[in-house]
């Protein structure tokens, strides 16, 4: 288990438990009372630390290197899944994956940003930063789902759309804009869930749904706290403050009415019990699919238009 800076006190107790267990094994001493005491202390510490996470700490948890990613969820939520590749125009983006899966006995189009789990695969997945062909592949698969009247589930987890020369040449802006527009019009239910990072247009590019869910320790914002710090404060040192100002957590987003549901995570974050997390998310997705199943094509479309049209505050001043 990898611990973050603010998890130090928890890691220390873990270490002492492991040490004691080793002593117990090696020297035939009964260490179980001491271990039980430490475990109780551990639970207390966890409640204390995870119960009062700052916004920046939640951002850190959303990026935890052991956090489950899209393909993990798909594999553990769907009884079958076949990945479908390519945008039919340029190539196959590895930072967005998708394909038909079977969720609770029904066909669904599963789409999501994909990050890597080690140095090599992180590069292969371009750190979850998609190029235009990723958004175009996603749209192709969404249209495929629409043709056969299957619902669409999008799992969002990106530090942003990739800012590169080729991405601009191939129309990153157009690709994202097109997805926003087309997703509004699709005739099937769309559920979007932020499972990690929801950064800016790169997240929203697969984020226009009838229902928007966020896992408990995730964030959704127009910009990452680091980039916000860099632009508004002129350096990267104010990222914690930027996170506070941006009010970007699942709790914030729910309070603002910008997302519908917070999906609870295991104590300490999704990676503390990834299978439980997948199960919780699966149940929430199934319940949401059931809610949307009654709606007609037009009702689904109108719901998305009304939902997003009502976002934003302003006042009338003469």
């Amino acid at each position, binding site marked *: 288990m990898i611990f973050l800076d603010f998890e130090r006190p928890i890691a220390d107790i873990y270490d002492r438990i492991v040490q004691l267990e080793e002593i117990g094994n090696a020297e035939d001493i009964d260490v179980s009372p001491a271990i039980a005491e430490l475990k109780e202390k551990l639970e207390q510490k966890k409640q204390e630390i995870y119960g009062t996470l700052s916004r920046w700490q939640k951002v850190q948890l959303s990026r935890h290197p052991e956090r489950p990613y899209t393909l993990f969820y798909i594999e553990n939520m769907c009884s079958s899944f076949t990945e479908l590749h390519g945008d039919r125009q340029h190539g196959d983006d590895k930072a967005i994956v998708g394909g038909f899966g079977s969720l609770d006995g029904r066909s669904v189009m599963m789409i999501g940003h994909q990050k890597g789990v080690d140095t090599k695969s992180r590069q292969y997945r371009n750190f979850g930063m998609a190029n235009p062909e990723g958004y175009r592949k996603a749209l192709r698969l969404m249209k495929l789902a629409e043709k056969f009247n299957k619902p669409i589930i999008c799992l969002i987890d990106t530090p942003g759309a990739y*800012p590169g*020369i080729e991405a601009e040449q191939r*129309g990153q802006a157009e690709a994202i804009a097109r997805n926003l527009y087309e997703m509004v*019009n699709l005739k099937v239910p769309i559920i979007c869930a932020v499972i990690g990072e929801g950064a800016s*247009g790169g997240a929203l590019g697969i984020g226009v749904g009838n229902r928007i869910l966020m896992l408990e320790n995730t964030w959704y914002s127009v910009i990452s706290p680091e980039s916000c710090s860099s632009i*508004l404060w002129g350096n990267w040192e104010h990222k914690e403050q930027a996170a506070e100002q941006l009010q970007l957590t699942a709790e914030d987003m729910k309070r*603002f009415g910008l997302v519908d549901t917070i999906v609870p995570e295991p104590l300490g974050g999704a990676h503390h019990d990834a299978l439980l997390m997948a199960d919780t998310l699966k149940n929430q997705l199934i319940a949401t699919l059931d809610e949307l199943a009654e709606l007609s094509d037009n009702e689904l479309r109108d719901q998305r238009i009304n939902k997003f049209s009502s976002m*934003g505050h302003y006042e009338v001043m003469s």
Partner: protein
Amino acid sequence: MAWFRRKKEGIRTKTEDKKEIPDGLWNHCKRCKNSVTSKEHKANKYVCLSCDYHDRISAQQYFEILYDNEQYEELFADLAPVDVLNFSDKRPYKKRLELAQDKTKKKDALQVGFGKMNGIPLVTAAMDFKFIGGSMGAVVGQKIALAIDHAIAQKAPFLIISKSGGARMMESAFSLMQMAKTAAKLTQLSEAKLPFISLLTDPTTGGVSASFAMLGDMNIAEPNALIGFAGPRVIRETIKRDLPEGFQTSEFLLEHGFLDLIVERENLKEKLTELYSHMI
């Protein structure tokens, strides 16, 4: 410095001051430093005659260029931003808004005009770069939404003139969601079979380029405008090498298939009239 000359017939908001351009004021081209009088500069539609630099102009200036006899009605001018997040960086968002409002005499970064262009009724939503970099917050999104409703009600074609660094950070996710909001409203305009031309001017980047600005039935641009998703600085820092010459210019986008055409401001009114005539 922006100047607004108004005809007595024009219907405008009461708060603006009537200003005539005084003789003897000079405009210096930002690119080649060539000097002309402000009067000539306006007559040239704020384009440098010696180097073709298209000066960054305000929504009002575009309205005066496009609408017949400079007559138009400004719509939804009373919509004002609210600081829902109580956002503060080095300076509070509220203060930034006050300063921008004082500087531009506008409540936010986009104005909506309605009038006739060569006799065609036209709803235009135009951005003001001087207002916090033309950034898109909830007011910009809502004004576009209302402008689209107005176009549908009047059965009028629609034009957006983009000039923006992107979404407004100080409105966080609210500003992000304006991308989806404006795209959603455009589907309604499309369903009403009303034409939408997107005019991209210098600069059009970020959340604006990645939403309505790229969604025109036709996407057109002024010459040599900066247009892109990511800003050049961010790209340079990411890839750690220099960017090719002409990267992210209007001409670059035309070459890569993302613009229908590039239009000199001098020809803008006539070209728009011609394009709309095929779609109405």
